């Protein structure tokens, strides 16, 4: 298994968000699905130590994530947040910054292409892009780290239907071109069926089902 969570409890703002969660996520395309407030995004943040659980253990490739250097872990297991949050400057600045964190030179045109943007976006001010374009720029920035795992927190929640379809196509195409596992958070079960092979379903901080999508998310 890529990730394993063992009896994980998490609190946020004094409220229990995850309660005694035990779950596994294999390599490949997984998703964490559930209604708003079910603890999906909180669980995702535990996978690359943007937060630590109050109780329980989160393992990545068999070892407790707390034994890993958090910075190296995040460059290997990179999270793309729900809403765009780019740094000041151009799209290229953002991509080059991310690559520099991993000590790499960025092939900006290729990374933008992987994220579904053409090279003309490189010199554009990140603040002036549409939400969908910013989301793609965030993806290109994450890919600059050459991560082994991409954690995608509701990447299409702020997009209209057409843009959502385009981002989904980009993500599906990406997995054919780059060797990367993905963990997608979504409240949309139809999207989970389209985008993932494995699902962990959450409700009010509890795991209510997990396993292959074809068994647990029947259309």
């Amino acid at each position, binding site marked *: 298994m890529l990730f394993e969570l063992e009896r994980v409890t998490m609190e946020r703002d004094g409220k229990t968000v995850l309660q005694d969660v035990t779950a596994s996520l294999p390599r490949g395309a997984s998703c964490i699905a559930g209604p708003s407030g079910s603890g999906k995004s909180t669980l995702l943040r535990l996978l690359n130590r*943007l*937060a630590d659980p109050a109780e329980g253990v989160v393992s990545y490739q068999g070892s407790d994530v707390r034994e890993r250097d958090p910075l190296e872990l995040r460059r290997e297991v990179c999270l793309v*947040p729900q809403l765009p*949050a780019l740094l000041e400057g151009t799209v290229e600045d953002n991509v080059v910054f991310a690559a520099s*964190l991993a000590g790499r030179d960025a092939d900006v045109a290729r990374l933008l292409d992987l994220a579904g943007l053409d090279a003309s976006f490189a010199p554009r001010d990140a603040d002036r892009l549409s939400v969908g374009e910013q989301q793609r720029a965030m993806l290109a920035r994450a890919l600059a780290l050459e991560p082994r795992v991409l954690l995608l927190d509701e990447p299409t929640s702020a997009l209209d239907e057409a843009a959502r379809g385009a981002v989904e196509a980009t993500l599906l195409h990406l997995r054919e071109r780059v060797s990367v596992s993905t963990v997608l958070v979504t409240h949309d079960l139809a999207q989970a069926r389209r985008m993932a092979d494995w699902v962990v379903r959450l409700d009010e901080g509890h795991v209510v089902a997990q396993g292959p999508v074809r068994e647990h998310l029947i259309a």
Partner: protein
Amino acid sequence: MTAATTSTSIHVSVGDVAATLALVAVAAGVSFWRRAELEEDIAIAVFRSFIQLTAIGYVITFIFDQDSLWLVAALIAIMVLFGAFTARRRARRVPDAFWPLLIALAVAGGATLGLVVALGVFNAQPRYLVPVGGMVVGNSMTAAAVALNRLGDEVAAHAREIEATLALGATSTQAAAPIVRRSLRSGMIALVDSTKTTGLIFFPGTMVGMLLAGAAPTDAVRLQLILLWTLLGSVALAGLIAITLAYRNFFTPAHQLREQPEP
């Protein structure tokens, strides 16, 4: 320093001071007339300024009479302590802001005074160190308070961007760099702007005081420049140290953004 040669003195009677209460009455009258509801605050401000300045006047007189640098150091230490407490109230969103502020004011005050004495700008005597120390600590306090207040607001407003940067494997220092830059700028900009406009839009206090006391305008200008430039250095130091120490309190050792407390 040549400051000793610029000193003059004038006598100000209690009656002169009391006469200026007429202007306080104007302020209270304006407040009453336009229903600004500041009459009580004006009364408290006038009372406190009278008590505090009178008290510090006696303290300074005592220190001048004793001519002891230890007493100067003790007075400045007390100013630093009260300055840190006062500034902390304006930086409520910054966790554990007191120690960064205390260290910032102490280092800025000590380093600035040490430097101006070492450069021979002022003699190491209470009559120079007490007023200059008071100005340095006061301005440093304001700058550090503004900088940390801005820092707290910036972290609250840009938590999403900070966490998105951390999610790439950036250190907390890298993730906080843009807000640290903006906060430091906030702390320094007021003094930089007033230094730019000094002599054009307003006459600063030291220069006015010296002119009223009968000093030559060129002496008043030189001393004012010394103080303004000294304050620029101390304000920059205080802001830098306060922010450098305080921003870390928003993060865990594992470079995680802590949950933000309610202001």
